[in-house]
């Protein structure tokens, strides 16, 4: 088990290095650099001023040197300062993490809690109308983009309850009720595609497991069908579910970029979109690194959980 943990850690380092190189190159390959955008349409700037600003931001160095400098500083926990505000990027990022974390965790919980019973229902009601209905709905759910669903939810609420205060952001600490009231819609929009695809995963693996011999044995023992499903089938069917659960955490982060935009929430996703538009290199690099790190850690945790659920995995 320890070896497996170390192997995971090694992978984590490789993935983070790879992603940091990719983001570093990608943001710099987009035409138009930070200096151009900061100066904007204001043409009363001399080429000397542009050159001085570029040197100040270190953009006059070769890409390799820029990357080496950044990695060196990052390893000391120094992720740079925002090009626009001059504040350390961590100070810009940290207040945003809470919003995105709340959305992602609530959406994941919401999806997971509903996916398991719905998946079981689909599996046991196979080829009956309830199975078909839920499957149809789930396909619609998977293919519907969160932002469209979010806007539709907003329209629906504005017609059904025109006076409800469901937009904007108040922190949970300031006003718990107001906070929950405002996250209902974004969490629903975010959770729906995840719920749909998780439910399908549960259904598929339940169908698979229900065909196994030991289920027939359990039934033959005279166990009630409920016990057969919950005690014997579900536990084994949960393995693929856990894997998708980890992947969905990453998907949700991507989704929250869009949902934060629609619902005007001050999360990490919006910060990143803004930072890319502004070519705020240090901020983009730091926030993507943070997101990658979270994603990789969550997946590593899922793999460890896997070992707990299925002892065979650790030995392999």
């Amino acid at each position: 088990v320890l070896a497996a943990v170390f192997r995971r850690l090694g992978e984590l380092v490789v993935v983070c290095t790879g992603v940091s190189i990719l983001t570093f190159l990608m943001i710099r390959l987009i035409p138009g650099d930070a200096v151009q955008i900061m100066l904007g349409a204001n043409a009363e700037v001399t080429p000397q001023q542009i050159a001085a600003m570029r040197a100040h931001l270190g953009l006059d160095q070769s890409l390799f040197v820029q990357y080496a400098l950044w990695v060196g500083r990052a390893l000391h926990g120094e992720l740079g300062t925002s090009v626009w505000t001059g504040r350390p990027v961590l100070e810009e990022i940290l207040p945003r993490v809470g919003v995105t974390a709340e959305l992602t965790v609530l959406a994941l919980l919401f999806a997971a809690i509903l996916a398991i019973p719905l998946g079981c229902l689909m599996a046991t009601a196979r080829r009956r109308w309830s199975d078909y209905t839920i499957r149809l709905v789930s396909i619609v759910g998977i293919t519907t983009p969160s932002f469209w669903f979010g806007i539709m939810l907003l329209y629906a609420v504005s017609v059904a309850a025109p006076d409800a205060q469901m937009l904007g952001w108040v922190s949970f600490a300031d006003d718990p009720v107001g906070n929950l009231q405002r996250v209902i819609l974004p969490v629903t929009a975010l959770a729906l595609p995840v719920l749909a695809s998780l439910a399908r995963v549960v259904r598929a693996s339940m169908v698979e497991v229900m065909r196994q011999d030991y289920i027939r044995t359990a039934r033959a023992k005279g166990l009630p069908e409920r016990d057969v499903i919950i005690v014997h089938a579900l536990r084994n069917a949960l393995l693929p579910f856990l894997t998708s659960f980890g992947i969905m955490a990453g998907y949700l982060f991507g989704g929250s970029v869009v949902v934060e935009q629609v619902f005007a929430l001050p999360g990490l996703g919006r910060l990143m979109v803004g930072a890319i538009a502004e070519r705020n290199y240090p901020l983009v690099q730091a926030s993507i690194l943070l997101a990658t790190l979270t994603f990789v850690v969550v997946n590593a945790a899922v793999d460890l959980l896997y070992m707990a659920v299925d002892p065979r995995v650790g030995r392999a």
Partner: protein
Amino acid sequence: MKSTAAAIGLGIALLAAATVPARAQVLEIATDQSPVGLDPQVATSFATQLVTSTIYEGLTAIDADLRVVPALASSWTVSDDGRTYRFQLRSGATFHNGRPLTPADVVASIARVRDPKTGSPYASRFTSITAVEPDGDRAVRVTLAQPSAPFLAQLAALAIIPPESVAELARHPVGTGAFRFHDWVPDTYIALERNPAYWDQGHPLLAGLKFDIVPEAATRQLGLQSGTYRMVPSLDSATAAALQGQSRVKVLSTQDLAYSLIGLNAAKPPFDKAAVREAVNLAVDRGEIVDAAYFGKAVPAGPLSPALRDWALPVSAFDCYRTDPSKARKLLQGAGLQLPVKVTLNVLGSLQQVVDVAQVVQAQMNKAGFEVTLKVQEQGKFIQDWRGGNFEAFASLNSGGPDPDDYFGRTFATGGATNVFKYSDPALDKLLSDARVSQNPGERKRLYDQAQRILACDGPVVHLAYGTLFTAVRADVQGYVPNPTRSLRGLRDVSTGP
């Protein structure tokens, strides 16, 4: 137990009643972009100006009819040679930090804008100032190198700041305006509160302003309908149409100073030839652009916005504005060009309005002997190419100014700061410099009429259409008059309630 709960409930209700004033309310405003900084002399984007126009004031202001009105200067006099202005400062004006406004603050504010180290985009407007000095303890004297007709209008954009706060202005503005800064949570909101010491007694009527940053147009619209937001300062035509006729919402409109345009590079073939530039004017049908890309909510554009009522010539004054594709084709052949003339049009992709306009223009130009390729660009790339003169032609949206001198001088004079077209016409240069120093309005009008005729057909900018600036407010918001400059200074006169 029950009675305790009831008592607490009653207490909360009383507290709530006590903290909500009977009349004054905080106006929640939904806006699309988070300002980069709030220093009114450095950050000049629409997003910043929207907020700072309620916090700061200049010596003068521009009213909703684009006329110059007194602000921090209660009155002024001009010397006979038109070179010396004496501004009487408003009595009772104090900064939000409690300190009274002094002539030294005006001197320092003008000096800061002109200082190259500040990097103010307004610096070039004030290069003709030769001296600024206090005149007694309630007046300031400004001397110019030569008379400047647009000077008073330009002063409206120069916010008067307290020099002791310069270091923190980008994050924590301190002005003299009707509202003072309270707090700012980036990407979430900027809250302002009523300035109780505002010089205009009894104003503002609101308890404060809250600018909510809401990037999605649909969300702003729904928030306004549900009453979460009480004002959306600028709407696109489609949203305005959707909101019109709803009982709880009022849609206000005014002529926008911003206009859509095609820019032509006068330093590169094929647009280095005046005949080819004229051919583009003949090719486009401005009426069709207004219908197709603006839902009819715009007016065809000459070089000056019709909002500048005293200056703008009607579009009927320009011969090349009569759409005539066959004449355009003849001009191209006359210029010795092989038809079709291949042209790449860079398009500012971040504004849907511009993309829509460009597509209509492409179809129109293709009927008149051109073969246009659209290159829709991301904003950063577009600006880079624009600044570097790295384009044949581009489609964009420009914000106009309240005085013709500022726009024409900057854009079309030889070597002008935003003359990215490398356009140069000595006759036009002469007209513009004469108009700038002229003190006679009739004379200025005549000079600008001539300049407009030259620019309409020969100039490097094909002016297409001036849109409409739509503002939506809840029905109970009273007294707001939208300003074509997009300034929200008028909020000082706004109240809410039945």
